């Protein structure tokens, strides 16, 4: 059987299979792990085979041709699909341990459907396939986010209502573009839109505007940056990494697949070194990352905090893409992978914390390093990577994006980027300080380290981020293929060095790691030759000479975690009112929600109804086309 088809069929079949044995949770999740393992392996073997494809002719005609649903193994799609399935594999391993009696979310079958649509999106060759998979992805994600909890269902509805806008603009866009290009093929539609740009500028802008809206909504770029804070926070803890790292990339993938080639090939009015629409995109990315960073700094719920952090990171990626330069796109793709790795590591370690403590508010936790040192270490390396600190992977991609922005003289965008990444430091450290460091509250005196099955994927992620940081070639080599596939002329990248457009600014990361290690050794020697240290109890602290217990100051009451950046926040209070789109977004969302809840009643009763929905939507769309 065609391997492309296998990629789709395996998750689909197992999805229905696992539905039948939903009661045996461990088995279900093990099957899930096996499927993701298979997918990762299959995708790995597919590297370099860029001629793989699969198509099926549907029995009716449009635009004078037979309508075809087709898949193709493009380097870009492979790049995203491979790293997505790798992430899924690691999450799956985590999920086996996570979904015990207490934390069971029973979402494995739907998740498999989601993976099915995930593969479909990344390998779709025509708009029809793309749309079906896109719609399937949006809907299945809704069910996983809802996962049978009252509050989650609310967040999921919010997510669904926002997604509905996205899918409807996508549908409209597809209809318009297909009409224009007389085919559903994506490649052809790019060329026809490029042509349209030279004849009717504003119409073309409207066409790509529809697509951009869809992609921005999916990636939660300004002005749609609000929904992740709800959806990510309320979804199952083991699903959040997938939602945050893989699903936020669909929009990015869409932008690279469709928007970038159009902007690159068209003759557009320029602003400085780059075209105006691209600059607009960069500005949107900049606004997103700045706002999301500011909002993340003030969160008390750790999952919400990292939801905003994800939004900010996607903002960086969009900024990198908008430079339209090789270095920028390289950086953006690199950062997409990095974001998958470090954000998965972060969310998994937080899931481990939630698994052990059942608490999501940062200020109610503290001092967990005493009990969960490995989780702490994973989280630490992940945030070092997320903050873009060398020698870990996050640095390389951020550095590439910054270099690209500077080379293109996008001055204020790059300042926004630096603001966001310094701000990232603030919120990342806040979570570190509040959750893992500080005083361990009495009620967590006897919690344990995360179970082995959780520890393994976390450790792998930790090593992965270090490996990529030291040897960037692991990622830059596949990126070369992607860029070549997109029509850029690139020199083959080296294993150790990353290049930029600026003069004399290349960076050898392996050397950097080496230098840093030598510095570490010097520092360690200084530490070792100096006097001995004695370990003391956590409450044995400077308390101005007072005995804290005489003042009823237990460790619970000796931990500064709430209102961590309160003085800073007061500076922003007037502004927070303004940027809190949440109010109008939620009022808007509520209207859609009401409409959708009437609809959703039909199929929330049983999971099997999803299939009905699929078929119904497919018929609807195709019927609309006729």
């Amino acid at each position, binding site marked *: 059987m065609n391997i492309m088809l296998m990629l789709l069929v395996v998750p689909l079949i197992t999805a229905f299979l696992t539905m039948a044995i939903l009661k045996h949770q461990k088995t279900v999740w093990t099957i899930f792990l096996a499927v993701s393992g298979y997918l990762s392996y299959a995708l790995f073997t597919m590297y370099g085979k860029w001629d793989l494809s699969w198509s099926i002719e549907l029995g009716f005609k449009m635009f004078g041709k037979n309508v075809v649903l087709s898949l193709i193994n493009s380097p870009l799609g492979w790049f995203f699909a491979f790293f997505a399935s790798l992430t899924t594999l690691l999450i799956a391993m985590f999920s086996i341990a996570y979904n015990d009696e207490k934390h069971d979310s029973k979402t494995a079958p739907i998740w498999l459907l989601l993976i099915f649509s995930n593969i479909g999106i990344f390998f779709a060759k025509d708009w029809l396939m793309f749309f079906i998979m896109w719609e399937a992805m949006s809907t299945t994600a809704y069910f996983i986010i809802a996962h049978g909890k009252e509050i989650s269902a609310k967040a999921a509805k919010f997510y669904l209502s926002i997604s509905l806008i996205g899918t409807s603009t996508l549908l409209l866009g597809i209809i318009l573009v297909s009409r224009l290009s007389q085919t559903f093929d994506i490649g052809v539609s790019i060329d026809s839109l490029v042509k349209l740009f030279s004849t009717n500028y504003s119409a073309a802008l409207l066409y790509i505007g529809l697509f951009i809206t869809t992609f921005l909504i999916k990636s939660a770029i300004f002005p749609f940056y609000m929904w992740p804070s709800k959806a990510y926070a309320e979804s199952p803890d083991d699903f959040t990494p997938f939602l945050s790292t893989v699903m936020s990339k669909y929009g990015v993938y869409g932008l690279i697949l469709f928007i970038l080639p159009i902007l690159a090939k068209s003759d557009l009015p320029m602003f400085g070194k780059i075209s105006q629409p691209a600059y607009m995109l960069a500005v949107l990315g900049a606004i997103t990352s700045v706002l999301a960073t500011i909002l993340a700094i003030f969160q008390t719920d750790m999952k919400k905090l990292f939801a905003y952090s994800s939004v900010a990171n996607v903002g960086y990626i969009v900024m990198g893409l908008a430079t339209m330069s090789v270095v920028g796109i390289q950086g953006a793709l690199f950062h997409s992978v990095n974001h998958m790795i470090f954000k998965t590591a972060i969310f998994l370690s937080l899931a481990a914390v939630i698994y052990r403590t059942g608490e999501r508010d940062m200020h109610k936790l503290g001092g967990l390093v005493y009990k969960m040192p490995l989780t702490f270490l994973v989280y630490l390396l992940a945030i070092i990577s997320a903050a873009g600190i060398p020698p870990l992977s996050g640095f390389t991609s951020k550095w590439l994006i910054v270099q690209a922005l500077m080379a293109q003289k996008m001055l204020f965008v790059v300042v926004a980027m630096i603001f966001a990444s310094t701000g990232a430091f603030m919120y990342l450290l806040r979570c570190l300080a509040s959750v893992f460091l500080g005083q361990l509250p009495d009620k967590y005196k006897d919690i344990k380290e995360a179970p082995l099955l959780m520890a393994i994927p976390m450790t792998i992620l930790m090593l992965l981020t270090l490996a990529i940081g030291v040897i960037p070639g692991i990622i830059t080599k596949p990126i070369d293929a992607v860029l070549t596939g997109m029509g850029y002329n690139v020199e083959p990248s080296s294993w150790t060095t990353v290049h930029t457009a600026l003069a004399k600014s290349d960076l050898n990361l392996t050397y950097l790691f080496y230098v840093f290690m030598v510095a570490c050794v010097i520092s360690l020697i200084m530490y070792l030759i100096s006097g001995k240290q*004695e370990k003391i109890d956590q409450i*044995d602290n*400077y308390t101005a*000479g*007072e*005995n804290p217990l005489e003042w009823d100051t237990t460790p619970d009451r000796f931990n500064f975690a709430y209102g961590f950046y309160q003085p800073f926040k007061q500076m922003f209070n007037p502004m927070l009112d303004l940027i809190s789109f949440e109010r109008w977004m939620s009022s808007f969302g509520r209207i859609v929600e009401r409409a959708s809840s009437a609809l959703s009643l039909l199929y929330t009763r049983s999971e099997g109804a999803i299939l009905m929905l699929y078929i119904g939507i497919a018929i609807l769309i195709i019927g609309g086309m006729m």
Partner: protein
Amino acid sequence: MQIINYADEERRQEDNRKLWDKVTAYFRSRSLWMLHYCTGCGAMELPPIMTSRWDIERFGIVPMATPRQADILLLTGYASTNTMKRIIRTYEQMPEPKWVIAFGSCTVNGGMYWDSYNTVNNVGEYIPIDITIAGCMPRPEAILDTMVKLMNMVKSGDAKAFQKYKDNYGYYKANQDKLFARTAPVLESASLKYVHNETEGSEQ
């Protein structure tokens, strides 16, 4: 409680100190950081010695904010019972090596507060003292002189009160408990008359 006599033992140790110890002792003596803690009125003469006129920073002595960073604890004057408790906690929070200087007559025998119900008479019974300065209050010159003396003692390895505290912890702990861990009134008169007031209070 047996108190080890240090005088002889130290003199014996003096000769066979290693070179490394001598070097550390020199550096330590040149960089004594004192804890910024005004335990009593003697603290009033600290600002002058720290500031322009006497400028103790010449000798590398600077005030430090917390006991973790400090080398010297200054007991500036009388120690009330409450303060004594805090002094002991502070002293125990200081890393070794650490030294204590007691200021003024009231730290030796209570001074003019000898019969007060809330001041400790001899501070040396509760924590070990390296040097005591006489006077009420000691003049800045005296303090400066003491500091220099302490520097010399540190350099020669004579200032070992912290060692004494470790070795005779039982003695010090017993004295501290006598002061703080009181469970019953000390004077007989209390049991007769104070009870009335307590019941009166609870009725209200």
